[in-house]
């Protein structure tokens, strides 16, 4: 079967007449900034469609989802689609693979590029045969006469004569929902999974060049540590086969045997003395640190420009009831299972870098910036960044840093291939963290029980210091070299672009007067940057906890209370589906209170993305045991059904790990999270029963699924634990220590007494 072949010669792409801020017609997703068809597709290999994307596989299954979109629009079997690894030398620049945007950015672009290429190929075939284009239908990549059933051509023949080095003009629309045969329903194999199941060489760690040199980096334990030892003096007994490289506080051991290099580097590291870092906050009182550190304060959002009510609580009207509470999350580690690794070769003015960076073009820009003082620096065009897969990163981890480490070592060994791999301790202590964050909520409820005023204040470091965006490089080694530059302070993207620490701080409820205040720290004792869901994880937990707290104080059912303040039909739909289908929520026989509890939480990710609702059932003794998690999600038009389920399940489990276990520990001697024993994450014996209900809306735009579940799951667990204990828990993680703090109503968190 085939979709209709809509050909027209309109000059303006249908539905895309809005002018963008750059003065150009707004095109969907990354097509806007990558308009040439040849940037996306190639038909140069017979029977294969090669797809170029700037988005990279992080384990989220994006290659599979994009291949499905191409197969759908071109009416091919998914096996005929080959998605090429991203490189700066070919394909679109799609900035960073982050923010659950790949389906929206790359997927939307490919829908439209494929529709256009399909129309071009059919039109050209029909024209050469003197037939109306409407007579041709596409079957598995071939063009068949709908009347005679004769095969008249295919993409590869038709496009041999067509130059795809041309801009998208909007010849045809993507397939309407009713003509789709693959998206949302087709069960497709994950493209990347066989290599992983059979142990093939697929990861960057498996790349092996002849005579490749290995290096290990030895670096300051914290951002402010100063080296007290002379590295040359303490390394006189290094094995002959390795070399020491010292550039300021950036030190590397280099040699041909990875094992000898590693052993030597470990030995040297143990001998080096560093100053204590007195700039680190008290890890036991992060709420105090966050609220007292220097910061920049801004109003992220308010109910209306001229709304007199969207002022601070001090000028809210008298009467009604006031509520306030504060919620805290510690620093969290990305904690990839793999280690950051990169390979570089600096040869005759050309630099090649193999990396698992999430943003290869941005990394290149930052490398150019970091080398701008060097006379031998290659020109931007002479730097080629090749993406190679690694373990999941869950945000800005050490991938970019280790790439620059490799560049610096490769510079010292011209023409040689150099591979740098971090250690487990490096991965957990030198990758940027997700910032500690405090959310203080205040609300006024009128005598009829309606929330009239709402303020959500956030204190945290910014949530992005990704490469390629600041005036100084964000690559760690750039701050350690003798010609050092200071690391840029992380920023928060504007709320219109999803926000940072303030992501999802705008309530999803109908509140006439609201204000979001963002306090961005202007100091950075621990290095922070983007971690999955950014501020949404805590903000959603805080809002959904606060709604429970207010409902309880008003003596109202917590779901009905939310419903009264909700208008969004898609939010209500996920909530209804979840609660109606739940295996436990409506079971009157299950114990509630006295160590047993159930909780609910929902959010629309970024207030513009996917809708997700979650419920949890817990048992609390001296620790928290999560028994059940159930979720319902609406990501618009589903592309890869199992891919969405996998992202929601994984997001829920990772969020549960953050919520009940995780916390970066540190003191003035440095970070105390160097291994899995002191940064434990969720193990398989701790997982709950888990189920996901999916709403497919084929007529709506597709939305990313990777970060929809984290906030709602945290909220559901916290609300369940609070019910189980009969008191409010506001500090993450829900560790035995923090449960005890809640029992004693820690005043630094606005304990129980301060609720009203």
């Amino acid at each position, binding site marked *: 079967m085939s979709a209709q072949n809509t050909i027209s010669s309109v000059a303006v792409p249908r539905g895309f007449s809005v002018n963008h801020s750059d003065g150009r017609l707004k095109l969907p997703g990354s097509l806007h900034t990558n308009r040439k068809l040849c940037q996306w597709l190639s038909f140069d290999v017979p029977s294969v469609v090669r797809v170029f994307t700037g988005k990279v596989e*992080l*384990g*989220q*299954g994006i290659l599979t989802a994009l291949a499905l979109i191409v197969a759908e629009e071109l009416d091919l079997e998914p096996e005929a689609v080959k998605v090429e690894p991203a490189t700066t030398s070919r394909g679109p620049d799609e900035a960073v693979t982050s923010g659950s945007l790949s389906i929206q950015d790359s997927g939307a672009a490919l829908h439209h590029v494929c529709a256009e290429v399909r129309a071009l190929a059919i039109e050209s075939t029909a024209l050469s045969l003197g037939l109306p284009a409407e007579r041709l239908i596409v079957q598995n990549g071939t063009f068949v006469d709908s009347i005679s059933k004769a095969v008249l051509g295919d993409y590869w023949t038709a496009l041999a004569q067509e130059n795809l080095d041309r801009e998208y003009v909007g010849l045809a629309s993507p397939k309407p929902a009713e003509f789709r045969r693959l998206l949302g329903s087709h069960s497709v*194999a*994950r493209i*990347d*999974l*066989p*290599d*992983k*199941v*059979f*142990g*093939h*060489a*697929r*990861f960057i*760690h*498996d790349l*092996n060049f002849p005579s490749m040199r290995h290096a290990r980096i030895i670096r300051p334990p914290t951002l402010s540590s100063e080296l007290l030892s002379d590295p040359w003096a303490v390394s006189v007994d290094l094995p002959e086969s390795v070399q020491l490289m010292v550039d300021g506080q950036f030190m590397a051991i280099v040699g041909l*045997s*990875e*094992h000898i290099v590693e052993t030597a580097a470990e030995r040297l590291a143990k001998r080096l003395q560093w100053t204590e870092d007195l700039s680190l906050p008290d890890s036991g009182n992060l709420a105090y640190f966050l609220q007292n550190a220097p910061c920049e304060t801004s109003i992220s959002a308010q109910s209306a420009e001229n709304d007199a009510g969207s002022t601070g609580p001090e000028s809210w009207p008298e009467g009604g009831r006031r509520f306030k509470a504060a919620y805290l999350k510690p620093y969290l580690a990305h*904690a*990839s*299972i*793999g*280690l950051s690794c990169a390979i570089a070769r600096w040869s005759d003015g050309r630099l090649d870098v193999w990396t698992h960076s999430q943003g290869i073009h941005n990394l290149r820009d930052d490398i150019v910036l970091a080398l701008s003082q060097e006379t031998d620096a290659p020109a931007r065009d002479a730097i080629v960044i090749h993406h190679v*897969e*690694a*373990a*999941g990163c*869950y945000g800005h981890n050490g991938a970019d840093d280790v790439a620059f480490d490799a560049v610096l070592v490769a510079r010292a060994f011209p023409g040689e291939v150099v591979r740098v*791999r971090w*250690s*487990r301790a490096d991965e957990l202590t030198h990758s940027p963290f997700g910032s500690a964050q405090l959310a203080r909520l205040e609300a006024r409820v009128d005598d009829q029980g309606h929330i009239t005023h709402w303020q959500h204040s956030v204190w945290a470091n910014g949530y992005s210091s990704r490469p390629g965006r600041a005036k100084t490089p964000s690559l760690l080694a750039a701050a350690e070299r003798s010609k050092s530059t200071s690391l840029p302070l992380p920023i928060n993207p504007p709320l219109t672009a999803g926000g940072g620490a303030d992501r999802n701080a705008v309530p999803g409820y109908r509140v006439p007067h609201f204000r979001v205040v963002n306090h961005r720290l202007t100091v950075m004792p621990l290095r922070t940057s983007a971690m999955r869901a950014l501020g949404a994880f805590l903000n959603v937990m805080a809002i959904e906890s606060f709604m429970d707290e207010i409902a309880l104080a008003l003596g109202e059912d917590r779901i009905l209370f939310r419903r009264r303040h909700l208008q969004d039909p898609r939010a209500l739909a996920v909530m209804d589906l979840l609660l109606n289908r739940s295996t436990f929520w409506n079971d009157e026989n299950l114990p509630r209170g006295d160590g047993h509890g159930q909780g609910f939480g929902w959010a629309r990710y970024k207030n513009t993305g996917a809708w997700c609702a979650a419920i949890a059932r817990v048992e609390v003794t001296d620790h928290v045991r999560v028994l059940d998690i159930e979720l319902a999600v609406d990501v618009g038009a589903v592309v890869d059904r*199992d*891919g969405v389920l*996998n*992202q929601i*399940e*994984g*997001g*829920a*489990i*990772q969020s549960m*790990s953050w919520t009940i276990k995780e916390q970066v520990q540190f003191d003035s001697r440095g970070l105390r999270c160097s*291994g*899995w*024993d002191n940064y434990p*994450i*969720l*193990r*398989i*014996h701790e*997982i709950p029963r*888990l189920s996901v209900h999916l709403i497919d809306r084929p007529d709506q735009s597709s939305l990313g699924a990777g970060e929809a579940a984290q906030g709602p799951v945290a909220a559901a667990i916290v609300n369940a634990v609070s019910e189980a204990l009969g008191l409010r828990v506001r500090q993450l993680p829900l560790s035995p220590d923090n449960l005890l703090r809640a029992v004693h109503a820690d005043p630094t968190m606005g304990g129980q007494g301060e609720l009203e």
Partner: protein
Amino acid sequence: MIELQVNSEVCQVDCEDSTPLLVTLRETLGLSGPRFGCGQGECGACMVLIDGKPETSCNRPMGSLQGCRVETIEGLGNIESPHPVQRAFLVERAGQCGYCLSGVLTSVIGLLRANPSPSRAEIIAALDPHLCRCGAYIRMIRAVERAVGQSEN
């Protein structure tokens, strides 16, 4: 010189007794299946079978392996002739980034050899040495249950 069997080959390896088995497998023998995750035997990414028993290879010294039989994921099934567990993991799409998977599958295959129809609790116990940061644990259990014919689906 340490002599051991790796998959179907007998190998003589010239290395120090303290060299970790994982280094020999990856650096000397060029195997990519066992992955380096932590170097302390805490994450399971480097799991292999030593004389049939799942053990981490990153912290296992070569000196203790004279005459032992080591099996890696490469020796347990391949794309032409997959182990039923590998097939089940593909069908269930039981993984995300997949960095942990060769270790996970090795432990499962070791378990099934000793106990062809494990209970859910036995599956969980066998997989507890393995960390999966993507949170694909539930699918892993489902895939093992599919492979042993216990799946309710």
